[in-house]
């Protein structure tokens, strides 16, 4: 009903998820579906010299063993314009098109069999001989270069000179490890051909682009591929691109003439769907004695693959977070023989904020100033880089609300000065921000004579609550109770939606849903207390549908739109054992209008959990001899468990950003992860007096 927006509504897909009725990609089982197991390369670079598939082919239940020797040459029709989720420089990995090996774990063969057990057994029987080549498997050993896509350097004022003249300076290097998305649902694809038409049930954050990519691979018209994905079991960026296993599923199904399912194992996910790149950063800050920044230099060097150039917005926080006349940012890449990194929740921004916000903490120490005071002293009243006013910014309110709830004023300034029994106590804080984007999007709305409505868009819901929020927006405009509105998503048969990433869904699809619902009301002339049933009767129809396509206007030329936040963390450190616990985190956020406080809070809670993982637990252990992740499983790649999580509090500053879009929402998936890791790292410094600049902050790092 009107007023649905802003209410703490329970997830509309909650019952389906708690009963097991919600179906994820691997769970669609067309009749006669076969199973696929993959063989991955064991060298990081070289050529396949010989393949022996005889034993595999003879194994029970095996229908096909596909390698570059017997796979058809696929068209890989070139794009006029690369999809925005793919790197603009380089070529995506092609599947079974040649003997080249570009990274360890690259799929080099696929076995199709009646059952998963049979397919996996046979895959283990495939014999491979490699002509290995010297590989670049260390960050230090890789060629360092500017991004070919451009944007390697930005300057405002004269930062180097200003740094030399600054009264107070800090200058340090921060290291962020390779991290993996590790969504709970493994990526999976089910492929079914009917003549020249292909249906894919695929785990993806963008069904529309998934279909287009696969159509290009197979040289089909775009509309011959349908992608269906009603539920995504988390993705955090791993589902943005269309990875090789999707092509393998379609190829295998075509070759055996039966539907197939490819389900990646947890280990395979570490080489199949990208990762957050290892990034080393230097931040140098210069300030006046009163804390005002005079110079800011932020340099980041991140790994990419040898075949594609993945770049991130690591340095955008340096350019916009604080007021500073002299700013220099420099971005460099290191090519390695690894699979291509990709975006992972708050890509780049979370990495860059870790370095920037730790450096700000170091500056506060050097100035003998409260870290929060230092942020306020450098509050950016406008986006100085783009020279634009903010469309909205309630960061001051965030600082105040967060500090108050947290009890920041109780912080004793000196490190190692707060204790709780045997534990050292530390308080740390950090600023968070994330750009708010909006894309074009479409939606349709249909009202029926029984007073229900159906609203559709090919959007996605990987957990933030798209189903729920869109239902609220539609119910609000249509003035219907929530349970009379049904929102459908995740199918290319529905009106086109943009990528479900970068926190753009609410601002983009939400405004399309709003417009479609307004359009159907206008078409019906529904208003003035007339029911839809009456209006439809007058039109002599039993239903009425309207479709809307909305695009952003010129607002991004007039305003700079970002979500903001202030994070406060308490840590307890056992100096004898090196244990770091996080009993409390408080986050206060400005995300514009909050459509659903319940799911919005959950998003931010989840971001805090992810940020705690980033701070204390997560890293891919790298074996440079084989160019391989050693801890490619949940027992050794640590992610936060329930017992790691203390009290988390989420506050929202009142906001409604109609300058940014007609819904007033700025988006809030990514912002939740931002600022958490530096707040914790800064709290560890406050507790121990030790500045740890390499993530994660492990027991051994605290002890040394």
């Amino acid at each position, binding site marked *: 009903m009107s007023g649905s927006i802003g209410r703490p509504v329970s997830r509309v897909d909650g019952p389906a998820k*708690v009963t097991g009725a919600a179906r994820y990609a691997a769970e669609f089982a067309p009749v006669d579906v076969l199973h696929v197991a993959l063989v991955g390369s064991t060298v990081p670079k070289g050529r396949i010299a010989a393949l022996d598939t005889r034993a595999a082919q003879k194994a*029970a239940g095996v229908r096909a063993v596909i390698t570059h020797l017997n796979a058809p040459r696929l068209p890989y029709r070139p794009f006029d314009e690369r999809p925005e989720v793919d790197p603009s420089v380089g070529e995506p990995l092609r599947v079974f098109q040649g003997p080249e090996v570009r990274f360890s774990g690259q799929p080099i063969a696929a076995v199709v069999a009646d059952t998963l057990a049979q397919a996996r057994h046979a895959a283990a029987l495939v014999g491979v001989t490699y002509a290995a080549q010297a590989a670049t498997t260390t960050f230090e050993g890789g060629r360092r270069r500017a991004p070919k896509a451009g944007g390697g350097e930005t300057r405002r004022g004269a930062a180097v000179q200003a740094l030399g003249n600054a009264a107070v300076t800090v200058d340090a290097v921060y290291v962020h490890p390779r991290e993996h998305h590790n969504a709970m649902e493994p990526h999976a694809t089910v492929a079914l051909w009917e003549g020249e038409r292909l249906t894919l049930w695929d785990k993806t954050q963008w069904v529309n682009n998934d279909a287009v990519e696969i159509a290009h691979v197979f040289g089909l018209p775009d509309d011959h591929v349908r992608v269906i994905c009603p*539920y995504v079991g988390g993705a955090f960026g791993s589902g943005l691109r269309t990875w090789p296993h999707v092509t393998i599923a379609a190829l295998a199904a075509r070759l055996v003439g039966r539907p197939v399912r490819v389900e990646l194992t947890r280990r395979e996910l570490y080489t199949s769907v990208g990762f957050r790149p290892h990034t080393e950063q230097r931040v140098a800050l210069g300030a006046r004695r009163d804390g005002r920044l005079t110079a800011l230099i932020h340099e980041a060097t991140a790994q990419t693959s040898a075949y594609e150039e993945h770049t991130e917005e690591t340095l955008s926080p340096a350019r916009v977070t604080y007021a500073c006349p002299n700013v220099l940012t420099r971005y460099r890449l290191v090519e390695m023989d690894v699979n291509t990194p990709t975006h992972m929740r708050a890509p780049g921004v979370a990495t860059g904020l870790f370095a920037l916000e730790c450096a700000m903490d170091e500056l506060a120490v050097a100035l003998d100033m409260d870290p929060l005071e230092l942020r306020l002293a450098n509050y950016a009243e406008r986006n100085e880089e783009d020279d634009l006013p903010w469309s909205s910014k309630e960061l001051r309110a965030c600082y105040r609300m967060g500090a108050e709830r947290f009890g920041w004023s109780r912080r004793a300034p000196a490190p190692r000065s707060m204790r709780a029994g045997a534990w050292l106590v530390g308080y740390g804080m950090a600023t968070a921000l994330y750009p708010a984007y909006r894309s074009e999007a479409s939606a349709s709305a249909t009202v029926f004579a029984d007073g229900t409505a159906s609203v559709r868009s090919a959007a996605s819901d990987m957990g933030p609550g798209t189903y729920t929020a869109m239902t609220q927006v539609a119910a609000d405009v249509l003035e219907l109770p929530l349970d009379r509105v049904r929102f459908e998503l995740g199918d290319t048969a529905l009106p086109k939606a943009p990528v479900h990433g970068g926190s753009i869904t609410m601002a983009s699809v939400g405004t399309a849903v709003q417009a479609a619902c307004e359009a159907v009301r206008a078409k019906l002339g529904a208003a003035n207390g007339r029911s839809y049933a009456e209006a439809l009767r007058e039109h002599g129809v039993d239903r009425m549908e309207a479709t809307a396509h909305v695009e952003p206007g010129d607002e991004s030329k007039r305003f700079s739109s970002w979500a903001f936040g202030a994070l406060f963390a308490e840590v307890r450190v056992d100096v004898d054992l090196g244990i770091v616990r996080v009993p409390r985190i408080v986050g206060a956020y400005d995300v514009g209008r909050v459509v659903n406080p319940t799911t919005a809070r959950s998003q931010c809670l989840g971001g805090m959990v992810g940020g705690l993982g980033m701070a204390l637990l997560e890293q891919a252990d790298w074996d440079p001899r084989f160019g391989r992740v050693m801890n490619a499983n949940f027992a050794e790649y640590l992610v936060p468990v*329930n*017992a790691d999580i203390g009290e988390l509090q989420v506050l929202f500053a009142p906001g409604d950003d109609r300058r940014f879009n007609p819904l007033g929402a700025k988006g809030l998936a990514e912002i939740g992860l931002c600022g958490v890791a530096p707040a914790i790292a800064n709290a560890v410094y406050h507790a121990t007096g030790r500045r740890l600049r390499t993530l994660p902050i492990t027991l051994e790092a605290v002890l040394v």
Partner: protein
Amino acid sequence: MELPRPRRDIELTLRVNGAERPLTLDARTTLLDALRDHLHLTGTKKGCELGQCGACTVLRDGRRIKACLTLAAMQAGAEIVTIEGLAADGALHPVQAAFVEHDGLQCGYCTPGQIMSAVALLREGRTGSDDEIREFMSGNLCRCGAYTNIVAAIRQAADRAA
């Protein structure tokens, strides 16, 4: 070297959610794959197949186990309850209802495992404090980070059951 050929199919009857389910399976089939691929009970999730994530948690004779770590052949005769067997006559089990009410989920993929684990937790009497709940729910990973709300949901279910 000639590798031993895998054993042929075996016949067995699983008892799942109160129903007898005769099956002919490859002997290597895990209980998890038997549930998902053969009985089409896809509510039990596959997250790692290594016993490390808890997504596949089901009840065997009232105790929580990981369905990926046991072969279906080893479970003939046992009473298996999956997420699909929890709601009675269409009404949500109190733990399911509490998860919806407290938003103890986001993507929902870990959720069936969390709920099965929580149901067992209540029976185990491990809900004395929030810390105890956290500790004994730590075999169920949630990458979306819904832990705070999961604890709140279990707390409510425990209080109501008391």
